[in-house]
Each structure stands twice: as C-alpha cells, then as structure tokens.
C-alpha cells in the first residue's frame, strides 16, 4: 500500500483504527488493532469501500438538495414561489419526485436494443461519479490525490460522449439519433476549450494535482486567470448541457431530445447525472479558481468549500434563467471561433508572464493579475467582433394585411376575415 494514502485524514483514521499495528500507522501514534497482523489488505479494502461509499452517497444527497434548491430559487427569480407543498418550504419535493419517478411505468420501445437501452444510463452516471474521487473537499479530505488530477477530470468527462451516442442509438428512432448527434457534436467541441483553459492554472500551480493547486492559491486564481475562469465556466456549462446550451432537454423543442424514450428510473438516472455533473463542475471551479477549501481559521475547511460551491451553483442557476437558448450552429461557432481563441490568448499571455517572473510571490501575482484582466477585456471585445451576430435586418412590414396593435384592446377598422389562406 502506498504510504501516501495515509495523508488522507479520513483514510488514516479508519485504516489505523483497524490495523494500527502496521509500521506506517505506528509511526503516527495509532495503536488500536481490530484485525490480526497479516490482514492489512483487508483493512485497506474495508477503508476504501467505506470512503467511496461515503463520497458517493454524499454526492447523491447533494443532488437531491440541489434539485429542490434550484426549483425554489428559479421560482423566486421568476417572481413566483417555487414548490412549497411538501415539507417546510417544499424541501421534501425531491423525495416526492424520486418516489414518483420510481413508480412510473418503465417502457422499453420495440425497436430499441434492450441491452444497450438499459446500459446507457449507467454509462452516463459513471464518469460523473468518478470525478468526485479527485476533488479535495477540505484539508486532507479527498479520496485520492492523483498527480495528474486535471487530466483525469478532463479524460473522464470526455467519456460522456460515447454514452450519449449509445443512448440515442439504443432508442431506435430517428429523432433520438439526430438529437444525439447534435449533442455529441457540442460535447466534443467544448472539450478542447475546457482542457486548454486549465493550462494557465497548471502553469501557475506547477502541478496537475488538485491538492497542490489548492495549496498554490495564496491569492485565488480567479484574479490571476480571468480568461481561464470565463472559458471554463462556459465550457463546463456546455459539457453538462445546461441552458443556454441545453439542446437536449429543450423542453419547448424536440420533446426530450435523445432521452425521448426513457421513462421512469432510467430517465431519473439521466436527470441525476446531469445535476450531479453541474455540482461537480462547480466544485471544480471552486477548487481550481476560487481557492478550494482555503479560508480563515475558526470555520472548518469543509464548510468553506461547501459555501463556495453554493455560491458558484447560485451563479450557474442565475445564468440559466437569464439568457435564451442558443442554436446549434451558434454553439459550435462559439466553441471553435470564440472560446478556442480566448484559450490560446490566455496560454500565450500566461506563458510570457511566467517566463518573466518564474516564481511569483504575492506582489508579482497581483501584477500578473492586473495585466491578465486588461487582456481579458480586450480579447473578449476582439473576439466578440469576430463572432458578429450576422446581418439580420428585420423584414419590412406587410402592407396587404392589417397590422394588429399588440397588447391593446382596440382593433383596426379594416379587420375582416377574407377567407383566404390561414396564416
């Protein structure tokens, strides 16, 4: 067993409680032993199982609370109450939702391939849960601190593409396949800006490990890498298919897109995967750009982390109901013509700044952040000129039909139904 595992405080506590007689535990002062001496592998297995269990259940519990919170807060943004029937302030709504979803009839269409149809939700949820393994939730609170943490996150989120292809194909109807292909085109287009926007963070922290990145944030990287945060925020929204990028679940358009034929708990699992992906994306933003679990002393680091995650989630919810949905060609041109160039500019400028100041202290970081913010505004202005919205001129008003005034009760004089075309 790699002795680096014992840096994880939760792991250390459980493992050394079970097998305190092993050498590395004895050095740190534990001496309770529940298992006989040759069974350290069993202690490792039990500890690993317990930690993974805790993390996954905490993640799923967070989704339940988040769904309620989102519906409530979106209701307030839209000047209405959210759900308020079940429990105080409607807090048990998600539980009621889950019970309803479980009891719905599970339909598998005839043309669908049963085996793949049942497999697709599992493949969708698996990458999202795996990302929870590398995020540091507090001081010494993580599942594993990989040396290649960022790359692991990007690789695992790129696995969601194949599950979308599978889900759309397994439904067996053309609408689902079209929607699935559009969704995959969007997903693979936004992997590149998401990966490249983190290179600036990687250069500043000097390591891909998420724990070391949090340690390197004496000032949070939102100040030093504004372009990186901007691009990562947009790309993460697109990867998790949130509005303004939700082609799939555009409720007013293609029914439910490629999720058309999924009912009951399979749809519930897709739904859960999408919301869990949003929570994981905001946890990543907190870790990489907002300083992770760093905060001031009397409040424990896990509470700081949770508080910052809630702030980022509020921001993402705010984005959801502020902007209209983008068309698929607008989404793709934003990725390839807009965000890609912003990431290249970010890498270039950050590399030059780090070449000038190889080991930045706090004052050098502040100078770098000032330069980066200026570059941020200039480059967004330039790229917005590149992504011109196109020449759209409103069509001239028709003169052969009466024009009805909007939002009044008056009707023009010549209103008459001529019996011609029904328009």
């Amino acid at each position: 067993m790699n002795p680096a595992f014992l840096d994880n405080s939760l792991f250390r506590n459980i493992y050394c409680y079970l097998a305190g007689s092993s050498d590395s535990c004895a050095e740190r002062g534990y001496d309770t032993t529940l298992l006989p001496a040759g069974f350290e592998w069993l202690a490792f297995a039990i500890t690993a199982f317990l930690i993974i269990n805790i993390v996954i259940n905490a993640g799923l519990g967070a989704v339940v609370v988040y769904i309620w919170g989102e519906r409530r807060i979106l209701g307030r943004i839209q000047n209405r109450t959210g759900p308020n029937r079940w429990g105080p302030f409607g807090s048990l709504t998600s539980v009621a939702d889950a019970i309803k979803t479980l009891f719905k009839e599970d339909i598998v269409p005839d043309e669908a391939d049963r085996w793949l149809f049942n497999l697709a939700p599992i493949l969708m949820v698996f990458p999202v849960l795996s990302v929870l393994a590398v995020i540091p939730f507090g001081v010494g609170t993580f599942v594993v601190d990989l040396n290649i943490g960022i790359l692991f996150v990007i690789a695992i989120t790129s696995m969601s593409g194949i599950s979308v292809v599978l889900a759309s194909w397994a439904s067996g109807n053309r609408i689902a396949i079209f929607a699935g292909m559009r969704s995959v085109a969007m997903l693979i287009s936004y992997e590149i800006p998401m990966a490249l926007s983190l290179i600036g963070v990687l250069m500043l922290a000097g390591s891909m490990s998420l724990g070391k990145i949090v340690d390197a944030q004496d000032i949070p990287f939102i100040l030093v890498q504004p372009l990186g945060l901007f691009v990562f925020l947009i790309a993460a929204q697109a990867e998790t298919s949130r509005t303004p990028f939700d082609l799939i679940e555009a409720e007013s358009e293609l029914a439910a897109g490629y999720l058309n034929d999924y009912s009951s708990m399979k749809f519930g699992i897709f739904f859960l995967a999408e919301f869990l992906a949003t929570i994981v994306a905001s946890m990543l933003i907190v870790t990489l750009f907002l300083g992770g679990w760093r905060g001031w002393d009397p409040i424990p680091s896990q509470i700081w982390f949770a508080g910052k995650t809630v702030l980022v989630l509020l921001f993402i919810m705010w984005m959801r109901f502020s902007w209209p949905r983008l068309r698929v060609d607008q989404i793709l041109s934003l990725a390839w013509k807009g965000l890609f160039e912003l990431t290249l500019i970010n890498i270039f400028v950050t590399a030059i700044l780090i070449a000038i100041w190889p080991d930045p202290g706090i004052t050098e970081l502040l100078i770098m952040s000032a330069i980066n913010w200026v570059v941020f505004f200039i480059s967004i202005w330039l790229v917005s000129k590149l992504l011109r919205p196109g020449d759209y001129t409103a069509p001239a008003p028709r003169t052969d039909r009466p024009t009805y005034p909007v939002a009044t009760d008056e009707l023009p004089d010549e209103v008459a139904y001529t019996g011609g075309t029904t328009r």
Partner: protein
Amino acid sequence: MSGAFDSGPIATLAFFVASAMTIASAIIVVTQRDLVRAVVALAMSFVGVAAIYFILNAEFIGVVQVLVYVGAISILIAFAVMFIGDLANAGTLSQSRLVSAVAGVLMLASIIFVAYNTDWTAIDEVDDPDAVAGLVGHYEVTDGSAGENSIAAAGDEIEDARGGALVDGSSHIGPALIREFVLPFETLGLLLIAALIGALVVIRGRQEDDAQEDDAA
C-alpha cells in the same frame, strides 16, 4: 522507485479483474454480429486497458488512453457504424473463421512461450557487473534495503535529488518530449495535420462530380 515494486495482493487482484474485463470485451468485439454492441464492448475494453495502465504505474498513459481512445476514437467508430455499418452482413465467414482462430491461437501460444522462456533480467547498459547480481528477481524487490547498487537504492537517490519526483513519472514526460523525443514530436504534429487534410480531401473529393451528374441526369 522504492515503493513501486510493492505490488501487494490488492494490486494483483485489481490487475486480474481489469484483464478479465478487457479480454472478455475483446472477445465480444470480434464475435458480435451487431456492430453497435461491438463498439460498446470496444469502449469497455479500452477502459479495461486504461485500468491496466494505472495498475502498472503509468497513470499519464492511462489518462491519455481514456481521453483519446474512449473519448474520441470510440465516438468516431460509433458514428461510422451508425451511418453505414449495419447495412451489410457483419458476421464472419465460416471458412476463414477456423483458419483465423488457428492463427490467433498460434500467435498467443508463441507469445506465451517467448514470455516464459526469456530471461528478462539481462540488460545491456550495465557497467558494473556486480550490480547485475542484485537484479535477479528485480521485479520482486519489496523494500529499499538491498544494498548500494540495487534499484530501490537508485530510486531513493532520485527521490532525494528531485524531492520524490520519480514516483510521479508524468512530470518527466513533458521535458522528454521537448528534449530527447523532439523529432518524433514535431513529426507527429506534421502527421496529424496531414491526416486532417487527407481525411477532408477524401470525404469531399467527389461531391462536385456527383452534383454535376445529378444536374445532367
């Protein structure tokens, strides 16, 4: 790599589980008639191979495997299958199935024979013959106390000099690409551009001709 040879039973168990999953998925790929299931099994086998890379201390390669193979190549093949794959009969020919199975079994047998009958401890670059004596069974050394010229001691020296960097092989891949392997790296860039342009040319090559024929007919 003082800690690297300490495999332990959990790593061995994980290796066997990952290999079983990989080989089972590979068998599904080559025998499944329905190509979409074959693509899913292919993606599973890639994930199994990535797990094997993680167990063999090659984390960077494992992550690159997931990113490139599962995240891009599987989707590419799945798109191709969705467009044109299920037209023809995707099954195997009966005659060449037997011959191919014989060829595969022969290949596997020869690999196993070579693997078990070669002495893998022979190394050309060793200058100090006394060091070779410490290398017999070198991949079973479990602790760092085997003498001055053993691998464990070498690993300790590197770790002391670099602050533990050898444990993390991925930080050496970047400099390696720029220093020792710069020529293949730049050639790879050229090759990727050539592949990109070539694929576009092959796909778009005949579209103007087809359009003219449709207009004439």
